[in-house]
């Protein structure tokens, strides 16, 4: 099939490994070998407690090694090439943090007595402290297992705070440019969502905000810099409006990589925030997770944090777990994604003040430099760690597919909606100038191509364009559904 390819004319070229088999790519495990075994026969249990049979793939280790190696070759990661997926902060994941997370000392059971896991508790307390300092917060919980879980935790804390004050508040206000998780979180926590239209300049519209908040407002959820990469310059006025109405200010930490050492949510008037450690603190994204979403709060809200919380004992003889006085309870069965948190601790301890500040400086410089080098229009500004270009007359999703042929994982597409045919681009600090120049060349090459070429893309990836509409029409979600 690749014989029909029209080779791209500029930028770095890319051919992804492609293993093909009859009618597909790498065969499914079951297509290589599968065995159905009877379960009841040799079982140590009476028949009525067991299932009858089980059919699973039955391959030898060398066959499995080859299967998963081939699958990995048909998958693109940060180490493969540039990954400027806006709002996801796909930065380089230091290899040593993998080794640190694999230390045998990390492998303890969560129900161990506090006295027997002092090292684990100390590392938790130290990371809580690091994150509090970085965010300008007074107390931090590590329990939420992802950013959206952090949002859920933070909004539940806001709800508990209002309830403790005898204050019945039913609404959460969210700008239209916010991450989809914000809206879904507020709804899950039982609030009505009030969507706030952006101002002409892409930021919060103060007048609209004043009109939207009131006695029913539990919180405003805000990302700063926002998804256009713009710092909310009026943040002090925003905080005042929300606080005067009796609401709390929630900080979505997805874009914190823009601000390390330059500004802290706590200093801007935010009462509660989450950190995305898989974004800001370089833990691997793992093909979709696991991440971690610690939540920081002001002193006033500390008594609502999830249980157990970890602290230094009053006599400083060791660390202890305790239940905060008005705790919202638990948001994860145990203590969250511990091995992700260990990696984040190692990253912060490695970089220190200077490294963290430099990471943000390079991330912001890279975004600004890349924006200055591409032919696509970039509305709004000045931006920080990311920018949203417009594909103009092109379909942003098609342009993105073509970028794959140039060895670039494309930006987030068609979002935020306030930019037409949006290409939301976040190069992170992981790219050097040469790589950014290649990226710009790829963007420009795609910008110059016609619709037919874009619609035929990608050509050089393992699979060609996949028909997602058809896949959703008659969903086939397991190998059982492929049997005739």
């Amino acid at each position, binding site marked *: 099939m690749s014989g029909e390819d029209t080779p791209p004319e500029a930028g770095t070229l890319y051919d992804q490994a492609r293993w093909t088999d009859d009618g597909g790519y790498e065969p499914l495990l079951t297509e290589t070998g599968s065995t159905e075994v009877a379960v009841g026969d040799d079982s140590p249990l009476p028949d009525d*407690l067991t299932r009858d049979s089980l059919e699973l793939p039955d391959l030898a280790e060398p066959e499995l090694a080859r299967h998963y190696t081939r699958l990995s070759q048909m998958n693109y990661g940060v180490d493969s090439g540039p990954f400027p997926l806006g709002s996801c902060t796909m930065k380089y994941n*230091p290899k040593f943090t993998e080794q640190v997370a694999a230390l045998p000392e990390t492998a303890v059971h969560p129900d161990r007595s506090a006295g027997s896991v002092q090292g684990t508790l100390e590392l938790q307390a130290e990371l809580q402290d690091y994150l509090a*300092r970085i965010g300008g917060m007074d107390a931090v919980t590590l329990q939420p297992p992802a950013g959206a879980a952090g949002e859920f935790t933070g909004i539940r804390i806001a709800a508990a705070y209002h309830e403790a004050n005898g204050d019945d508040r039913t609404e959460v206000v969210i700008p239209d440019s916010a991450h989809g998780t914000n809206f879904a979180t507020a709804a899950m926590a039982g609030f009505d969502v009030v969507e706030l239209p952006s101002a002409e300049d892409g930021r919060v519209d103060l007048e609209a905000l004043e009109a939207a908040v009131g006695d029913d407002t539990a919180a405003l959820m805000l990302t700063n810099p926002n998804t256009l990469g713009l710092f909310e310059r009026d943040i002090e006025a925003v905080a005042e409006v929300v606080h005067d109405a009796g609401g709390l200010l929630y900080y979505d930490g997805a874009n914190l990589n823009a601000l390390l050492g330059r500004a802290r949510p706590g200093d801007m008037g935010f009462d509660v925030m989450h950190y995305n450690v898989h974004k800001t603190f370089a833990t691997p994204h793992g093909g979709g997770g696991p991440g971690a979403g610690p939540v920081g709060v002001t002193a006033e809200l500390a008594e609502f944090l999830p249980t157990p919380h970890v602290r230094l004992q009053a006599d400083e003889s060791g660390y202890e777990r305790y239940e905060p006085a008005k705790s919202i309870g638990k948001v994860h*069965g145990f203590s969250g994604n511990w091995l992700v948190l260990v990696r984040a601790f190692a990253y912060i301890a490695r970089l220190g003040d200077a490294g963290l500040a430099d990471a943000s400086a390079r991330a912001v410089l890279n975004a600004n430099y890349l924006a200055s080098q591409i032919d696509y229009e970039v509305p709004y500004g000045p931006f920080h760690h990311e920018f949203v270009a417009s594909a103009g007359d092109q379909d942003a999703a098609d342009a993105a597919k073509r970028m794959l042929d140039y060895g670039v994982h494309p930006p987030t597409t068609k979002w935020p909606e306030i930019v037409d045919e949006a290409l939301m681009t976040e190069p992170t600090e992981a790219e050097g100038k040469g790589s950014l120049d290649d990226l710009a060349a790829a963007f420009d090459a795609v910008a110059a191509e016609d619709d037919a070429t874009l619609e035929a893309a990608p050509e050089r990836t393992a699979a060609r364009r*996949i028909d997602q509409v058809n896949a959703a029409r008659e*969903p086939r979600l397991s190998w059982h559904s492929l049997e005739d």
Partner: protein
Amino acid sequence: MTRRTRGSPYAPGDADDTAAMLDAVGVDGVEGLFDIPDPVRFDGEFGIEPRSERDTRRLVERTLGRNDELTEFMGRGHYDHYVPALVDDLASRQEFLTSYTQYQPEVAQGFLQALFEYQSMLVELTGLGVANCSMYDAATALGEAATLSQRVRSVSGDRILVPDQLREGKREVLGAYADGPDLPVESYPTAEGTVDTEGLADALDDDVSMVYAENPTVCGAIEPELDTVGDLADDHEALFVLGSDPIALALLERPADVGADVVVGEASALGAGTAYGMGTGLFATREDFLRQVPGRLVGVGEDATGRRAFTLTLQTREQHIRKERATSNICTNQALMALRTAIHVATLGPDGLVDLAGDCVTLARDLAARLDEVSGLRAPVNDRHHFREFQAHTDQPAAAVAADLESEGFAVHVVGDHRIQVCVTDANEPAVDRFVDAIAEVA
């Protein structure tokens, strides 16, 4: 090229590059790029000293080294099984590890196929038609099942019934998810560590939207009357949600055969090992509820060459499209952990997995029998078959027994004034003789 000696070691570029880039952007220095008003600009320090890679590693080693080295006989929802080297090796490949959600399926076929295979394994293990790519852990998967019960048209009512012995952490997380939609969570009684079916029947009425049970239960007991639980839930048009894990599912009654509508649990029983409670939420349900499923789903499609290819599908359920009307707020999940579970299942194969499950029964049975012979102990407390773990009565106060065991180098659960819980798997089995000797000393 001069390497920068200060700053992030993970950000390329030298002074000349920086100067050229600043020039192109049209600013004098990097600080000029930060559009931050003075009153909220941060001029302080975090007070975190940078360290070399070696020193950072030593810091973590030294800190975690303050943990006592205990051999754990612990479970109650977080399990340790030997993880084959193949799992670590393959799941550590950067193409998997450093990738993200498969928004561009053409360049992410590998992970998509691996997740499709994971979904398929769970479909086989549960007998239910749909499994998602993972939730955070068993507790959050249970919470998602509760909200699902409100979106399913065949279900009326809003009360959620859970066993009185449910692990507190799970109950609290369920409570958090149930709080928004205002669903009351109530307990039904258990007897001998499993469902008291008469008690459940008394607690049930048509206002109940969901009945939750576990197999094995939190105390390791195997449910003898699961089909009755399923029938009772069915009689009242309530969802029957069953908690389990992929090892137990390989041996115990197939959830679809006992009328389960949803299966939740810890997929991390395979592929993960002990990780201070970090888990992988298993979530499977009937095909009828497909469009109400939370989380990501991988489906089969075709590419432009007509070849079979994989893609995320039915994304209109999800937050990035449906916003406040999404089935869940979940975005980042536990994909890499799901990959690890799938590789572990594949490494074991059907015989290996069923054998491992059988060992979970015999190891617990044998250890309980040995503890029962120890003066001052009675085990198992519950007159049931057990899986991995069981409870034991201690004549001495249980807390004292557990504390003394710690000084002998072992950790167990204290679950009552005179009751401990003990978990045994292929991971700690080699230490069983020493454990029995130690507990005989202290009991």
